[in-house]
């Protein structure tokens, strides 16, 4: 199948800064892509460009549409959850369901109601009477009942407690995701999503600095726990990062031969958050 999103030479300049700097990437169907970057790196701008919410220069094709010209058509196939509380505060649960059911051609009302039945939400309840977690539950119920091909999540669990966060990703994987769907998620809570991601994209200062699937990441990046006596030898191999734990040094290597590293000490797969910290460490310096 052809790519869900094809971007080439994507740029976006705000008055003060370059938010996207000549970015190119492709996203294939059936993937769960983590778009990870520090604050102000251009994540949200990239998502907005994909959703047709902002203007940009360059080429961008989302599901065969140009988001700049065909946003309303594109939204028939794309769902979007921004960071919590973007549902209008005056709306009631049944109004939200009625509205989406009548406006969205791919909305499955029964599915939505089944999902709502598992929550404490009442049909007459207004969004302004709900907690953040409940608002996300409602939004998720609406979105999961839409048979979309692309789901975009921008910090979907920001400000939620851990129960809601776990439940959110659980529902997403169990009840929503399949090989015909694609999910793009940005979050700062990397640990929570790293198990579900199939692809990883790091973005920094408007540029994509890493774009690989998780298997490739596992092959390319290796952490080695090195005793003090071997540390100099390890440093000679130009590690990305070095940190000290219990008198040992942990080195993170990018693209160094596995056999070569095995001689130095115990090998580990780096966590996405360690990788992120190592890649981004000079960002705020």
């Amino acid at each position, binding site marked *: 199948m052809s790519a869900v999103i094809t971007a080439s030479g994507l740029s976006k300049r705000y008055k003060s800064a370059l938010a996207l700097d000549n970015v190119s990437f492709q996203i294939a169907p059936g993937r769960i892509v983590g778009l990870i970057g520090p604050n102000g790196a251009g994540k*949200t*701008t990239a998502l*907005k460009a994909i*959703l047709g*919410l*902002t*203007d940009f220069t360059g080429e961008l094709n989302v599901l065969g549409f140009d988001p700049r010209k065909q*946003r*309303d*058509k*594109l*939204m*028939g196939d*794309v*769902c*979007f959850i*921004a960071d919590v*509380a*973007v*549902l*209008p*505060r*005056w*709306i*009631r649960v049944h*109004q939200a369901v*009625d*509205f*989406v059911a*009548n*406006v*969205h*051609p791919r909305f499955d009302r029964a599915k939505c109601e089944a999902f709502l039945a598992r929550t404490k939400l009442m049909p007459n309840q207004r969004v302004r009477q709900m907690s953040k977690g409940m608002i996300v539950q409602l*939004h998720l119920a609406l979105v999961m009942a839409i048979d979309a091909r692309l789901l975009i999540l921008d910090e979907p669990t920001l400000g939620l407690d851990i129960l809601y966060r776990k439940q959110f990703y659980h529902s997403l994987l169990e009840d929503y995701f399949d090989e015909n769907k694609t999910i793009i998620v940005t979050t700062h809570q990397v640990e929570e999503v790293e198990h579900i991601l199939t692809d990883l994209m790091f973005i920094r200062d408007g540029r994509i600095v890493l774009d690989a699937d998780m298997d490739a990441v596992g092959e390319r990046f290796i952490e080695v726990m090195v005793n003090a006596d071997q540390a100099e030898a390890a440093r000679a191999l130009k590690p990305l990062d070095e940190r000290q734990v219990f008198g040992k040094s942990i080195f993170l290597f990018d693209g160094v031969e596995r056999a070569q590293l095995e001689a130095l000490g115990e090998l580990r797969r780096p966590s996405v958050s360690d990788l992120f910290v190592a890649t981004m460490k000079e960002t705020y310096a």
Partner: protein
Amino acid sequence: MKTFYWLIKREFWENRGSFLWAPIITGGVFLLLNIMGIITAEVLGARHGIQIGASGGLQHVIAQMDAGDTSKVSLALDIAMYSAMGLLSVVLGFVVFFYCLGALYDDRRDRSILFWKSLPVSDASTVLSKVVSATVLAPVIAVTMGIVVGMLQLLIVVVTLSFHGVNAWQLLLMAHPFRVMFNLLGYIPLYVLWALPTVGWLLLCSAWARNKPFLWAVALPVATGLLVSWFGLMGLFDLPTTWFWRNIVLRGLLSVFPGTGSLVGANEASIAHHVAGNTGLSVMDLANTYQLLASPNLWLGVIIGTGLIAGAGWFRRWRDDS
């Protein structure tokens, strides 16, 4: 079409307070005040021993009336019906004014625009649904309320008089409730056309302003007006400064108040002449109110209003607040 119906319904849900409850409460207060006024009058009358028509005298008076007098009574009764609408019109003006100011701004402020924009609805139909809500939905509700309250008001007057020995049916036959209804409902299409420039301007400010749309919407034309007055710019076009105030500032801001069209229209000589030839409430007849259709002022407003609405649609599409 189904989508558009639901978009309008959405507007009604969100603005139930101003679209529905504001006219209901206004109408209720209006009736209450009238009833209280009548009771006060009755009590005062009784206390001072004034017995109006207790002996059937008033009925006698009506029986003795000639055609001219009858028309005055029916005029009074029709005014009773219109008077409710007068008050509701002022309320409607405020409702539409502030609705338009917030329509494309409130959801940007609370970021729920991200939810609305995640649905397959074009920005053009969103903006259009707000125009229709402002110029059709709100007035239809207000006029319906006006008719209901007007009828009740007429009934109250008639019942009160019947206590004084006047034949209620005879009075009711003198009034023209259906003509009043017809005139009020028929005014709505004219209102749509007349209100367009103001609706367009307010929606444009609503879609464009990063904050304080009210300030922009009001201060911009008023400041321009002050500058024009100060430097006497209108002199360049051989027009008085008041021309600018009346045709740009007031026309741009206050056309959402029903009846302003007829007021301005009445200033224009041809219509004024026509109206002068009539008496009483025939001013309210559609044959008269629709004289406004002949005025270039109306059609220029429609053209400019359409342009402003298109501008609001453009900002709605591309305004990017992050």
